[in-house]
């Protein structure tokens, strides 16, 4: 396997882009990533997308994107892994370069959530659940998380309800300085405490908001990227793990096994311990997922992950900063495009280009994306290259 570096990144703000199509948003991210790489020409484009075939009535995205961005004839197709789709597309791009199959590959995440309007908007998100035995029953991704949080509070009666607020509070705080974030406004703990219940015991701030988005990364070898005029970031760990599709089929639903396994494998490949990293971009689709992900990663013993949210530990000043540019909660949650955003943000940190939110001397980053309630988990370890 060859060494693989990230030579270019591009993103558009997550938002409600009523005036832009799937074509428009993907073209902007693709062009931005190409420009950032010094106009490297990808030989393969792997696209992470979840809902286009339902929300935008558009499949065959490989042909659409390459045709629309002057890359005709390039290998390209969609990778679908629920909301972890573009993290999985990134892994495929990594494997394509590492194996020597191509020298330059692009991973593109894109999602047009607002192509549907009104009541049917959340319909496509149900695709990631078990249709016959969850969606059809009236379950949603939000109620799945509500069930997990209720069970968590039952199994861990000492857990403080307000501790879960750390995830939205940190996210909103960090998004203030992210020009690509959906919500650039900090929230106060009192506001979190008083927010209306959506799926008990979860309130509206425990739930990340969906939005449109597109982000892209160009991967290549260090040799090809040697002329790029910014620091390079290496991919040193990549893994995907799978759990049951339906939440009810798990012997221990609070374990987030796939999240734990993929993270352990990615760290082992990188030759690091999770505690070695300078930041952790985790999948806070719901506050409780933040807690369960931290426990699965081994940052806290089982049932004690909520305690990590009590002090400054997870903030930009702490020793385990999470979701440094806002996370899903405040940067926004563009479904299958989310993983590409997380990776782009980690690259900004490792290059020293994160502005006001820069983690001093950040060298190692963990990035994890989940599909469903960690039915699919994709984890990457990124490292700033010396020099």
């Amino acid at each position: 396997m060859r060494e693989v570096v990230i030579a270019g990144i591009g993103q558009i703000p997550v938002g409600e882009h009523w005036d832009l199509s799937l074509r428009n948003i993907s073209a902007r991210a693709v062009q931005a990533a190409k420009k950032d790489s010094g106009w490297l020409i990808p030989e393969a484009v792997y696209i992470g997308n979840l809902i286009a075939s339902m929300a935008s009535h558009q499949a065959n995205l490989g042909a659409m994107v390459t045709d629309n961005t002057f890359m005709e004839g390039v290998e390209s197709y969609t990778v679908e892994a629920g909301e972890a789709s573009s993290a999985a597309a990134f892994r495929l791009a990594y494997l394509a370069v590492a194996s020597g199959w191509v020298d330059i590959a692009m991973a593109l995440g894109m999602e047009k959530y607002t192509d549907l309007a009104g009541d049917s908007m959340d319909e496509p998100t149900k695709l990631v659940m078990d249709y016959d035995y969850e969606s059809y029953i009236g379950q949603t991704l939000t109620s799945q998380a509500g069930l997990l949080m209720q069970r968590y509070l039952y199994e861990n009666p000492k857990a403080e309800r307000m501790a879960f607020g750390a995830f939205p509070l940190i996210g909103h705080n960090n998004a203030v300085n992210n020009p690509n974030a959906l919500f650039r406004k900090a929230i106060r703990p009192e506001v979190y405490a008083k927010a209306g219940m959506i799926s008990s015991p979860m309130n509206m701030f425990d739930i990340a908001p969906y939005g449109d988005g597109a982000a892209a990364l160009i991967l290549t070898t260090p040799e090809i990227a040697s002329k790029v005029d910014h620091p390079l970031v290496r991919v040193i760990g990549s893994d995907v793990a799978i759990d049951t599709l339906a939440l009810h089929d798990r012997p221990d639903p609070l374990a987030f096994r796939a999240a734990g396994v993929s993270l352990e494998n990615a760290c082992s490949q990188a030759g690091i311990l999770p505690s070695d990293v300078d930041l952790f971009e985790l999948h806070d689709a719901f506050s409780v997922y933040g807690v369960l992900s931290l426990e699965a990663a081994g940052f806290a013993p089982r049932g004690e992950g909520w305690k990590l949210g009590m002090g400054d530990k997870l903030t930009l000043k702490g020793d385990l900063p999470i979701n440094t540019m806002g996370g899903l909660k405040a940067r926004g949650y563009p479904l299958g495009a989310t993983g590409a955003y997380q990776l782009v943000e980690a690259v900004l940190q490792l290059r020293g280009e994160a502005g006001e939110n820069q983690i001093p001397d950040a060298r190692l980053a963990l990035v994890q994306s989940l599909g469903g309630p960690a039915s699919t988990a994709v984890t990457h370890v990124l490292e700033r290259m010396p020099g």
Partner: protein
Amino acid sequence: MEVPRHWRLKKQRYALVGEVCPHCSSKIFPPRDVCPYCGGEAKTQFSFSGRGQVYSFTQMTNVPTGYEQSAPYTMALVQLEEGPVVTAQLTDLGEQHVEIGMPVEMVTRKIRTDMDDRGIIIYGYKFRPVMQA
């Protein structure tokens, strides 16, 4: 309309018909023909009793399109007495306070209408608190 799907699932929706593994005796719901515990082929039908207890629950304020008629409703994970856990709505709660461990039993109820008001009415399982004699 998804007539073939509704027809195909009628035994599960109306009678909780799953499977029992002939190799390790595990009870399986929903049926999957391959035992999730030992990997053996498991095609022997088994009807679940419909009795169980609440493993977790959440009251949903925002419900998906097509389910407004029941809103707000309580979604639950119900652990059947034979072992498997199913996702189901709780019903007939009245003023009953729901808690984890509460005994419940399966009933057949309207789940939703397919398409619009003129579409087919889809029935299926929900769970209610066990009736006291």
